[in-house]
C-alpha cells in the first residue's frame, strides 16, 4: 500500500486529505469525528472579529436529477467566540497530535493579526491560512476577497503575518481575479510558505421565480455568495496548474475546488497540489467519504507503480502547454462499435447540430454540408454495419470529415462504444513552429495580407 503521508512546508500530515475552512471544520467536536474517520487535517473555520449570520445561507444547483452539482453560501466566518475556538483547538491537538490543525484567519489591522496569530499558535496550531478569498459579506468590510483581488495589499498583509508567525503561513487565494498568477506571486513576495486555492467563486445561484428574488433568500432579498462543489473543479484545476507550472512559484499548493472522489484528488495532486482540501462533498455526504478517498488514491498509486503520493505530485504539469505548442498534425477519428451501440443516435444529433456534420445513419450515401472540406457525398459503409443491439440504427462516421473533436464520444451513454483512433497527418508541428518558420502569421489577430502587419 502506497505511502499517503505528506510534508507541506514542514507540516507533516498522515495523508493529503484536509477539511477546508468551512462548516465541516466549525468545531472541535466535528473535527475530532473527522479525524476518527481518517481525515489527515483540518483548516479550522475562519477565526476573526465577532460577526452575525443570516438565514438562509445555502443554495444548490441540481443537474438532471443529481443534487448539489454546485453549492453557494452566504455564511460568514465563525460566529463562535474566539476563546471557545482556541480552547477546542488546544483540546483537539492534545488528543490528535498526529493530525494537522491549521487556523484560518481573517482580521484587519496589523496589531489584530499579531494578536490573533499569537493566540492561535499558543493554542497549538500547525500552521496558519490567511483567508483572502471569501467573496461575500466580509469583502464588503475590506477583508476576504477584497484583499485577494489587490496583489499589493495581499503582499503587505502576508508580510505582516510573517513577522509574527512561527508556524508556516498559507495564503488562500480568490479565483475572482483576471490572472491567478498575480495574487499567487504577490503571496510569494510577501513570504508565504504555501498557497491554498481556490476559495469560492462570486455567484448568484438562482432566482426564486415565484417571488422573483435571488436565492438563498433572506426575507425579501439575497446577496451574491460563494460558489463551490463539483461544478467548479475545472476552474480550480486550471488555477492550481497555472501556479504549479510557473517558475516563480516554488512553495507548496493546497488544492481546493469540487473534490468529491479520490480521482478528483489525484488530478489536483498530478497538477501540482501537495494537499487537497474538501468541503462540499463532506457537507453533502459526511466525513465518511474519506475512506474511499484514501483507499482509492492508494489503489491508484499502487496500480501505477508509485510508492508514495509524492511521486504523483506535479506529474501532469509538464503536459499543460500553451495552445501554440500543441501538435497540429495529430489527428483523431471517431469509431463507433456496432457491438456496443444501443441506437440512441445522440451522437448523430450532437455531431450534426453541435459539431462537424460527419455522423450519418442509413444505407445510402449522404450529401455533405456545403462547407465540407472533402469533395462529393459522404460514402455510407457497404455493407451497413448491423449492431448486435441496435440493428440498422448504428450510425456511421464520414471519416474524411471527422475533426476528432470528441463530442460524439462525450454524449454517447455507452462506455467504450465510441473510441477515438489516432492518426497522424505528418511530423509533429505546432503553430509556434509554423510562425517561427515563417509559414504562418504571428499570433494576435487578423493581419493585413499585403503588408504582413
Amino acid at each position: 500500500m502506497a505511502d499517503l503521508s505528506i510534508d507541506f512546508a514542514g507540516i507533516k500530515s498522515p495523508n493529503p486529505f484536509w477539511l477546508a475552512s468551512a462548516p465541516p471544520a466549525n468545531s472541535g467536536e466535528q473535527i475530532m469525528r473527522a479525524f476518527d474517520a481518517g481525515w489527515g487535517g483540518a483548516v479550522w473555520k475562519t477565526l476573526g472579529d465577532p460577526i452575525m449570520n443570516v438565514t438562509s445561507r445555502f443554495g444548490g444547483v441540481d443537474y438532471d436529477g443529481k443534487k448539489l452539482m454546485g453549492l453557494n453560501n452566504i455564511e460568514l466566518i465563525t460566529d463562535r467566540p474566539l476563546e471557545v475556538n482556541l480552547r477546542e483547538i488546544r483540546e483537539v491537538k492534545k488528543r490528535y497530535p498526529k493530525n494537522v490543525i491549521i487556523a484560518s484567519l481573517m482580521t484587519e489591522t496589523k496589531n489584530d493579526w499579531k494578536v490573533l496569530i499569537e493566540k492561535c499558535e499558543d493554542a497549538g496550531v500547525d500552521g496558519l491560512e490567511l483567508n483572502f478569498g471569501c467573496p461575500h459579506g466580509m469583502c464588503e468590510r475590506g477583508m476576504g476577497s477584497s484583499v485577494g483581488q489587490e496583489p499589493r495589499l495581499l503582499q503587505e498583509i502576508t508580510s505582516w503575518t510573517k513577522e509574527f508567525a512561527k508556524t508556516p503561513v498559507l495564503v488562500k487565494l480568490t479565483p475572482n481575479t483576471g490572472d491567478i498568477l498575480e495574487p499567487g506571486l504577490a503571496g510569494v513576495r510577501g513570504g508565504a510558505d504555501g498557497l491554498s486555492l481556490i476559495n469560492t467563486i462570486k455567484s448568484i445561484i438562482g432566482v426564486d421565480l415565484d417571488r422573483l428574488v435571488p436565492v438563498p433568500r433572506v426575507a425579501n432579498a439575497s446577496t451574491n455568495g460563494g460558489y463551490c462543489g463539483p461544478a467548479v473543479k475545472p476552474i480550480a484545476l486550471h488555477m492550481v496548474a497555472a501556479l504549479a507550472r510557473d517558475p516563480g512559484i516554488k512553495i507548496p499548493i493546497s488544492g481546493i475546488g469540487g473534490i468529491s472522489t479520490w480521482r478528483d484528488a489525484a488530478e489536483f495532486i498530478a497538477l501540482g497540489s501537495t494537499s487537497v482540501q474538501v468541503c462540499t462533498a463532506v457537507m453533502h455526504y459526511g466525513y465518511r467519504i474519506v475512506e474511499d478517498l484514501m483507499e482509492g488514491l492508494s489503489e491508484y498509486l499502487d496500480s501505477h507503480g508509485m510508492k508514495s503520493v509524492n511521486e504523483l505530485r506535479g506529474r501532469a504539469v509538464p503536459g499543460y502547454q500553451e495552445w501554440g505548442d500543441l501538435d497540429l498534425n495529430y489527428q483523431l477519428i471517431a469509431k463507433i462499435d456496432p457491438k456496443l451501440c444501443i441506437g440512441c443516435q445522440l451522437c448523430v444529433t450532437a455531431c450534426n447540430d453541435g459539431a462537424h456534420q460527419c455522423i450519418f445513419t442509413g444505407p445510402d450515401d449522404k450529401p455533405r454540408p456545403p462547407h465540407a472540406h472533402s469533395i462529393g457525398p459522404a460514402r455510407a459503409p457497404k455493407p451497413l454495419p448491423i449492431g448486435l443491439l441496435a440493428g440498422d440504427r448504428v450510425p456511421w462516421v464520414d471519416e474524411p470529415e471527422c475533426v476528432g473533436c470528441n463530442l460524439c464520444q462525450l454524449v454517447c451513454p455507452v462506455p467504450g462504444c465510441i473510441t477515438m483512433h489516432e492518426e497522424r497527418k505528418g511530423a509533429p508541428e505546432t503553430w509556434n513552429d509554423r510562425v517561427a518558420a515563417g509559414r504562418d502569421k504571428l499570433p494576435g489577430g487578423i493581419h493585413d495580407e499585403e503588408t504582413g502587419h
Partner: protein
Amino acid sequence: MERALVDKKPLLGLAEARAEADRCLYCADAPCIKACPTEIDIPTFIKKIASGNVRGSAKTIFEQNLLGYSCARVCPVEVLCVGDCVYNGWGRDPIQIGRLQRFATETATAKGAAPVLKRHVDVGRASKKVACIGAGPASLAFAGYLALEGHQAVVFEKKAVAGGLNTTGIAPYKLHAEDAMHEVELIKSLGVEVVTGVEVGETDGPGKISGKKLLETYDAVFLGVGLGADTSLGIPGEEGPGVYGATAWIEKMKLGMSKDDKAEIAGKTMLVVGGGNTAIDVARESAQLGALDVAMLYRRGAEHMSGYAHEMEGARIDGVRLVTNVQPVAFVRQTDDSHGAPGGKLIALRVAKTDENAKPIAGTEHDIPCDLVALAIGQSKLRDVAKQLPGVELDKRGCVACDPKNGQTGNAKVFAGGDCINGGKEVVNAVADGRNAARTLLERWASSSTTISATQSGTS
C-alpha cells in the same frame, strides 16, 4: 364494484416522475416514437416533465393523441413504446413511458388546472358540421381534433354512457370507468357535443336518427361503432344461468354491479374460454375479485395465443391457470330443473382435447367442474349501421372497408375508424384512426377554401 380492483400502476409522485424522466436518454429519431401508433414525441414530453413543464408535456402528448390520458393507462406499452426503448437492448430497465404519460396528462388535467388545449375559435372561418356514430376513442379523437379547429362535432351514442370500451371494457386495474368519463369531459370541453341514448338506424324518432338524416345534415360522418355482442359457442346447454359473454360481463362489472354483487364471483370456480386479451382481462378481474379458482381454456398451444405474454404473466401472478389444447363441447347442467328453464344450474363444462387443427378429438371428452363460464371468443360485427350509409362497404371479415391511411370509405362524406375497421385492436389504434380522418378532412377543407387557410395561421 370495479373500485374493488386497485390500480396496478398508480400515478407517480412528482419526485418519482422527475427521477424517471431524468433517466431518459432523449434519443434522436427515437424508436419509441416509431413504435407508437399515434407517434407521440415521447422524448420531448419526457424532457418537459424533467424540466417541470408539465403542461407543455401534456400539450406535446395531446397534439398527437387527444386521448393520451387513457392510452397512458391502457396501452400495451410493453409491446409498443416501452418495448422499443433502447435501454432494453442495453440490459437496463426501459423508461416507464406509460406511467410518465399518465403523470403528465393526469396532472395537467386535474380539477382546477388551466386547459391544456384551447379551441381555435375564429369567426371569420366557415365552420363545418360533423357527426360521429359511437362515442368510443376513435370518434372522440375525430370529433375532438375537428372541434379544436373550430368545427362543430356531435357524437351519437346508443348506450347511456359515452367513452366506448374505455368506460365499459377496460380492466379496472388499468382504468376505472369514472376516469374514462373524466376524459370524455375533457373532449367535451373542447366543444364536442356528446348525445347518449340515440341509436343510428333506418328511421328518425325519439332515441333514433337515420343514416339518411345524418348525411343530409352534416358535412361529414364518422363511423366508430366498434364491435357487437360477444360470440357464443353454439353448443348444447349454452342457454341458461352461469354463462356470460366476456364483454357483457366486464361492462356489468364496471357499471352495474354493487359491492354486494361480489358474492356472484367470490368463492366460485370460473372458466374463461378464449386466448385473447379480453379472456385474460376477465380471468384476472375474476381472480382479483375473489373467485376461488379461475382457469382459461384455449383450443391451441399457448404459443398461438393472441393475448400478450406480459398480460398472461400478470394473470398467472393473480392466480389464473391456463389449460391449452381443449375445446368446449357441451355445458353440463343439473337435471332436476329446480333452477328454472331453459337450463338448470351449471355444474361443469365438457371439453375435448384438440388436434393440430384445433378440432375436438372424439373420445377425449371430460368434464371440468365450474360455477361460471365467461366466453371470450370474439365479438360479432355491427353490420347494420354501415348499411344505412350508401356507398359504405364491408370487407370479407365484416369490417368496414376503408383506406387504412385516413379511414375514407366508399362514400366521400363518410370516414370510419377503430374496432369496426380493424376487427378489434388497441385504443391507441382507434385514436390514430380518428385523428388521421380528422386531419384528412382539415386538409381537404383548407385546400377548398382560402378563407380557412388564411385564418388558420392566425389561430392561437
